[in-house]
């Protein structure tokens, strides 16, 4: 089995597939239910709520609007992935968490030049799995910088 650094988690927002390197992940919480505190939102920075995680409130980011993806899930139905960043842990909400995949199974695929202006600052690489594109999720584009 591959090392954790060599694996990525597949998740979906709307009908778009993403890959997230496992080294960024602290924990996958699953559905949040009623644990969000919406009074602590900062919509301008795409922070939709705060989440009590291990007795600390951490920001919850919903990247759907920033990514211009329409999602049919309400926030309470979404699944939560806890990520580590330079400013501490933060929560990413996604529609569906799928499986882990080895990096060996991923085929690099360039972002088309025509789409580079609109993807700038949002994503920069894509991989193919069974002829389906998956966007490599770059956490630093959404909240803080990743710890080395």
């Amino acid at each position: 089995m591959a090392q954790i650094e060599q694996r990525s988690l597949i998740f979906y927002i709307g009908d778009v597939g993403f890959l997230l390197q496992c080294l960024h992940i602290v924990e996958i919480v699953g559905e949040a239910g009623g644990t969000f505190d919406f009074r602590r939102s900062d919509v301008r920075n795409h922070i939709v709520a705060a989440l009590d995680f291990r007795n600390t409130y951490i920001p919850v980011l919903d990247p759907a609007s920033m990514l211009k993806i329409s999602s049919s899930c309400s926030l309470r139905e979404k699944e939560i992935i806890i990520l580590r960043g330079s400013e501490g842990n933060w929560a990413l909400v996604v529609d569906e968490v799928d499986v882990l995949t080895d990096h060996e199974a991923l085929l690099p695929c360039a972002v088309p030049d025509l789409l580079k202006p609109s993807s700038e600052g949002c994503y920069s690489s894509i991989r193919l799995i069974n002829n389906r594109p998956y966007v490599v999720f770059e956490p630093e584009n959404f909240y803080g910088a990743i710890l080395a």
Partner: protein
Amino acid sequence: MIMKRFGLFSLSDKAFALPLARLVKIVQGVQLFRLPRLPFECVGVIVHRDLLVPVINPAVLLDNRDVVREFSTTYCVIVSTDVGCLALPADQVRQIVSEDKGQLGPVEGQGGQYMSEAFVYRGSSFNIIDIDYLVLDMLQGFKRATFEPMLRGGIND
């Protein structure tokens, strides 16, 4: 001298012509995938030979600025541009015709901003798509949409 030829296809009730030299391949029944932050001109991508090919929004060809949310066309006409391939949606693919079999004329009807002229063949008019202008507008349109509101509103932050 090599005779210029056109590939003819139709989408909805409109007919189009493309210089054959730009046509790479016509694919049928391919799956469309969405990507984040697609510009209006693009409805998604298809995978062709392990490469992603942006698919042009049918609204652009039909000169209908309403966003087309459901993509259900039968064919994708893949064409080459200076910045890689792109795919045009098509319901029906006609034939390949030499320029001398018809004649060039003005764009049929409203046409749309990306039609340069029309190729008239056997009484039917096929608007010729100016792919280079479409590509240029896609690239510059994003800049306009991004920066012009900032310039108009001033820098407040």
